[in-house]
């Protein structure tokens, strides 16, 4: 194997299972590729590496690729997992007086700026008839947000799995609303433009590997949880809850998914999170790239 695929992964997700099983290596070997795996603490960092050409392929949530595209990163949407709206939510402490999203008016909500829950919060407020300006956003990365949440510094916390599940189980946090009916919450598989354009068979082999692992995971949530738990450092029951809410069926990015993604981009533009509007469909695999 004289060609290399550089894959970026995060601790929590299908790629960790894939890596453990060696499926990808087996599928790419005949095509003359070897695989190097690189772990990243989050989607933005993963795409940062992809942007400067240090990575060929990776997986993130829905928000990071929008910022990467806005920054001109040479990325392509290759595929996505189905919607998993239950995998993100707005939580409140168990004894909180807040009963509905509308009660958030004038309250402090912790969230990771520019993440999928940022979009969720906007949508949830919209639905409850509140303006974004009616709440005070407190931007914190998950670990810090949890500390603030526990400490009572914030009234609510918009968060995704597995942090969401962990807060539900260990802090007995109450769900104000999940993403259901508000957002779709996809996972995206993203490739570097030149790599995707020049290595079609390899990309297809990667997708085939993901399909294989998805199929396995769907039927073996318990075992998947047991396998991931030591690496992630999250108790098995928590992980099981998180994984059970996840959708497992990788598919090419459809026009509908692209359109949803476009809505997120437009919302972020309205929030001035990105400086200029962008067209998601320009960087979807198969759409001329």
């Amino acid at each position, binding site marked *: 194997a004289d060609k290399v695929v550089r894959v970026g992964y995060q601790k929590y997700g299908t790629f960790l299972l894939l890596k453990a099983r060696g499926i990808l290596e087996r599928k790419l070997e005949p095509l003359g590729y070897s695989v190097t795996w690189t772990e990243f603490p989050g989607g933005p960092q993963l795409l940062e590496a992809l942007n400067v050409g240090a990575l060929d392929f990776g997986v993130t949530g829905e928000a990071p690729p929008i*910022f*990467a595209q*806005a*920054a001109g990163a040479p990325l392509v949407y290759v595929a996505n997992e189905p919607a998993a709206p239950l995998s993100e939510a707005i939580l409140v402490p168990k004894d909180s007086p807040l009963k509905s999203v509308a009660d958030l008016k004038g309250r402090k909500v912790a969230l990771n700026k*520019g993440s999928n829950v940022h979009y969720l919060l906007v949508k949830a407020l919209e639905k409850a008839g509140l303006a974004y300006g009616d709440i005070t956003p407190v931007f914190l*990365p998950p670990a*810090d947000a*949890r500390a*603030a949440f*526990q400490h009572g510094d914030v009234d609510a916390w918009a968060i995704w799995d597995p942090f969401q599940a962990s807060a539900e189980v260990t802090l007995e946090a109450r769900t104000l609303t999940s993403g259901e009916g508000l957002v779709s919450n996809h996972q995206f598989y993203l490739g570097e433009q030149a790599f995707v354009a020049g290595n079609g068979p390899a990309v297809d082999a990667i997708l085939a590997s993901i399909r294989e692992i998805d199929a396995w995971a769907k039927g073996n949530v318990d075992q998947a949880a047991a396998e991931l738990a030591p690496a992630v450092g999250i108790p098995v029951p928590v992980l099981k809850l998180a994984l059970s809410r996840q959708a497992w069926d990788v598919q090419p990015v459809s026009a509908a998914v692209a359109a949803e993604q476009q809505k997120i981009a437009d919302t972020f533009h309205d929030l001035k999170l990105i400086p200029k509007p962008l067209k998601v469909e320009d960087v979807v695999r198969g759409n001329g790239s």
Partner: protein
Amino acid sequence: MAPLSVPRGVAAWILPVTLLVAWEIAADTGLISARTLPAPSAVALAFRQALSDGTLVQAVAVSTGRALQGLAIGGLLGFGLGVLNGLWKPAELLLDSTLQMLRNVPHLAIIPLVILWFGIGETAKVFLVTLGVLFPVYLNTYHGVRTIDPGLLEMARVYGLGPFARFVRVILPGALPSIFVGLRYGLGLMWLTLIVAETISASSGIGYMTMNAREFMQIDVVLMGILIYALLGKLSDVITRALEHATLAWHPSYAASQETPA
């Protein structure tokens, strides 16, 4: 090598300006792609933009406020502990080793604890800056106090100077050059810690601005942040130099450095 007969103020800028020009040329000729590293002119544009819409001034003002509070508290604590441990053996035995251990704990790692203790408000940020400034000031003050000429201390005691007079007239001036090194370092760390501190629920400040831009891959803004940090470093340097000049006039090496420009 040809003697440099340019004034200090100019010589100091030769290297940074050369680097900047080289970078611009490399960017303009396409040697580095603008996507991965925007040209200085692009950064200048971001600069002008941030200046004109007031975000930059506000960011610097907010960060400066936090930085100065942390500097005041951390600097005084570090100085006090340095003097205490430098002069009083039991304190040194009891505290120094613990301080050396605490010093080694990364700010990034203790952020959850800091939030638990201080919440997500300004206190937490100022606390982190305090920690950042404390240790270099402590270490250098301690070293400065320890290495004071014991002959001069003996003299002061024999000439009837009480502890306070000894401190003001012998220990402090003797340790000052070293304390300034600590201050110099502390002034730098003050800004560096702030970038960590401003990941705690900040919505303003240059650390926040830079990290936010990094998250969203606005490389031109990140570079602008880096330049601002560099300029703040230059500013700290100018301030410390002025302080040294004012207080170390008696010191052969400090006095000389000001008088002989080449």
